[in-house]
């Protein structure tokens, strides 16, 4: 493996800016003829640049894997993100253990350093937790403590409802209007009186509120990347105290870590997509749909090139890549929201309706719809759907009858699906199968 580190694939992304921008000014004779002759001559330090010509731009070295070094040492680090993804996976496991208590699940959600909340001792020792990073991005929530509190209250309520409404009915068959278990193929699902699986809401909700929000609206944001002296330090190659990386490099890597932090070889993550229960898994799922094949590579390449651009101090290239990531990851969330609504609709719409399968799909879809409020429309400061729009979708999904998902109609599912797809660059048909 180590020889690979030397195998940087040099891709000249940003070629030399033409020096001839002034050649149409007729009163100004071309001052230096050699700047426009496609040769390195005169006092040029590169072809038609440097010396008396315009400065040469540094080429971006875009490696073939997400591997970056300074003085022979890796500069990539995202331990905090890996830790939170592991905490999330353990918390989701505990959600499905009907002996868990509200206190236990809350403690796993808002872990405190040193508390024995997890099986994994490393997680217990960590000072990180999930709840404080839920709905916590600089762009969306720095000055919106209200929505942040409301969103965290939603997650808290899903924990509470799971323990107080679903656990007591664990060994009871669910029927319309009362919680319990229901078959979904050879699996058994545990649902609320209205057909919701709270663990799915929690899981798919975190895809937006934790990973999506942190990546799209925090770490890839110029507000974070360029905070304080980040640019000057990055230009000067000034690393953080005791670290190998500049602060800007590290911020970008933290975004990367929320997406790829649990891959076996995080420098080459597309080899084993599905390494966590969050974005990584669903990038893999969308990649598996022929309509969207290639999206996993687009996301990875944008992360890699953006990081290489930071090394090369090309901040415009960095921000272009961030925009690509914002668009594509938002799309992943939108596609899966529509996919699950349509899959659930198919499960109900047959001679023998498969309610268990449908509720499982709808519960996943509910979480992905919830996550839409954390997406990021490229070139804007806003999500594809506002919190109010998301809340309205979710109300529509649940209010076709008094028993929620037991009563949801195909018209409602199609209407929500269409409304979501319309705002993205895909159709209901492409996303739905």
């Amino acid at each position: 493996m180590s020889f690979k580190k030397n195998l940087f694939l040099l891709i000249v992304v940003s070629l030399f800016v033409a020096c001839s921008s002034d050649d149409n000014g007729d009163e100004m004779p071309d001052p230096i003829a050699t700047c426009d002759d496609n040769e390195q001559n005169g006092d040029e330090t590169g072809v038609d640049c440097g010396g008396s010509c315009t400065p040469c731009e540094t080429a971006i070295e875009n490696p073939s894997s997400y591997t970056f070094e300074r003085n022979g040492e890796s500069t990539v680090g995202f331990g905090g993100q890996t830790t939170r993804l592991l905490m999330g996976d353990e918390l989701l496991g505990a959600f499905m253990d009907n002996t868990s208590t509200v206190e236990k699940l809350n403690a796993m959600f808002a872990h405190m350093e040193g508390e024995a909340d997890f099986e994994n001792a490393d997680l217990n020792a960590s000072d990180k937790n999930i709840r404080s990073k839920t709905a916590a991005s600089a762009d969306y929530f720095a000055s919106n403590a209200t929505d942040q509190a409301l969103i965290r209250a939603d997650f808290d309520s899903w924990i509470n409802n799971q323990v107080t409404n679903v656990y007591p009915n664990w060994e009871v068959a669910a029927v319309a209007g009362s919680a319990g278990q229901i078959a979904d193929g050879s699996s058994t699902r545990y649902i609320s009186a209205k057909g919701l699986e709270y663990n799915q809401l929690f899981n798919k909700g975190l895809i937006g509120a934790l990973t999506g929000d942190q990546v799209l609206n925090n770490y890839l944001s110029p507000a974070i990347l360029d905070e304080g002296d980040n640019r000057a330090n990055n230009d000067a190659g000034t690393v953080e105290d005791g670290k190998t990386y500049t602060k800007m490099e590290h911020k970008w890597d933290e975004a990367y870590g929320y997406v790829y932090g649990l891959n076996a070889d995080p420098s080459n993550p597309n080899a084993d997509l599905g390494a966590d229960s969050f974005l990584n898994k669903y990038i893999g799922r969308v990649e598996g749909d022929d309509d969207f094949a290639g999206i996993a590579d687009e996301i990875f390449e944008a992360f890699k090139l953006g990081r290489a651009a930071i090394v090369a101090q090309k901040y415009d290239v960095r921000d272009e890549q961030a925009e690509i990531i914002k668009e594509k990851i938002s799309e992943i969330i939108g596609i899966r929201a529509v996919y699950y609504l349509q899959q659930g609709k198919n499960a109900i719409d047959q001679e023998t309706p498969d309610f268990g399968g449908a509720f499982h799909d709808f519960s996943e879809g509910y979480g992905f719809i919830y996550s839409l409020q954390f997406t990021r429309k490229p070139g804007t400061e806003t999500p594809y759907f506002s919190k109010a729009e998301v809340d309205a979708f979710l109300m529509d999904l649940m209010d076709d009858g008094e028993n929620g998902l037991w009563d949801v109609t195909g018209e409602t599912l199609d209407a929500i699906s269409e409304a979501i797809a319309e705002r993205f660059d895909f159709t209901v048909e492409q996303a739905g199968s």
Partner: protein
Amino acid sequence: MRHFLGLVIVLVVLWGCSSDNGTTMSDDVDPGPPAQGFERRPMLVNWADNIIIPGYEAFTDELNKLQSAFDDFKQDSNEANLVAFRTAWLDAYLVWQRVDMFEIGPAENVGLRLNINIYPVDFAKVEEHVASGDYDLTLSSNRDTKGFPALDYLINGLGDSDADIVSKYNELASKDNYIAYVEAVLADMQQLSSTVLSDWKEGYRDTFVNNDGSSSTASVDRFVNDYIFYFEKFLRAGKMGIPLGVFSGTPIPENVEAYHKGDVSKQLFLEGLEAVQDFFNGRHFASSTIGEGLASYLDTLNALKEGEDLNRIINDQFDAARESVNGLGTFRTEIEDNTPPTTMLQAYDEVQRAVPLLKVDMVSAMSISIDFVDADGD
């Protein structure tokens, strides 16, 4: 010539069926020349009246026999009665292989397959239920504690010898609980299967036969999907591929069907394969009579694959699969004693070769689209 024969068979079947359901049939007994296409209704009639319903009747009969064998064993829990109970269990398990593929309508409504035959059995949970006496077998989460696999454990897995097993049913501490549990498992199976049979007889038969068009919701299209799904997921993967480790990469011998009995998985598979082939050919249940089926459908369409008769190719592939599996030892020893279990993997490959013939060639000839994909999980 083949078209003519097809027509004759169609008419014969129609005549045969028109007696019990005269009025609805009359439209279809048309002496005029039939359209180029195949008449689907007579095939549905043959499936329902000569294969599916007789199959469920035989299955409920076998469960009744199983119940009486158990009643004898309960009366006197000796080794001879255990052996008889075991024989009745295997007989019923074999007839189950004949009806397992009919997971449509009534069977789909009650989820028959997954209530009757999820394996491996969770025998630790069975023991918890036995010990506590507190369980609800209708719950989805208890499906792996009942049906044939639970009986496999309770008849074959409670001890190393019949004497050991029988002793469990005689020890004062455990006796009543085990007997009560077997009784509950049997009652559950009987209740489910009799519901399915009566639903077929009282309404669903006509629903099934009358839905004789060709669209994704028509009986033929739906059932052909269910049939191929069964072949691919439950016969090929469930009985061979999963225990062989084809999907997980590691052999899992404890996932063979009837693991505790140990030496009948192959027999159960072969019965299932024969049921699939018989169904393909439209063969009446437990009879040599051939009626309308997928084979005659293909013949009417004159379906060929690379110039060869597709019906013949599919039957030959079923035969080749059977021959290959027949040459194996018991599945459990094949998997446990060979690393990798090459011979059984080769037999699996032979079974697999029928999948594209059914799933691609047959359905495209019939203009049926496949509506299932691998489950998405979470």
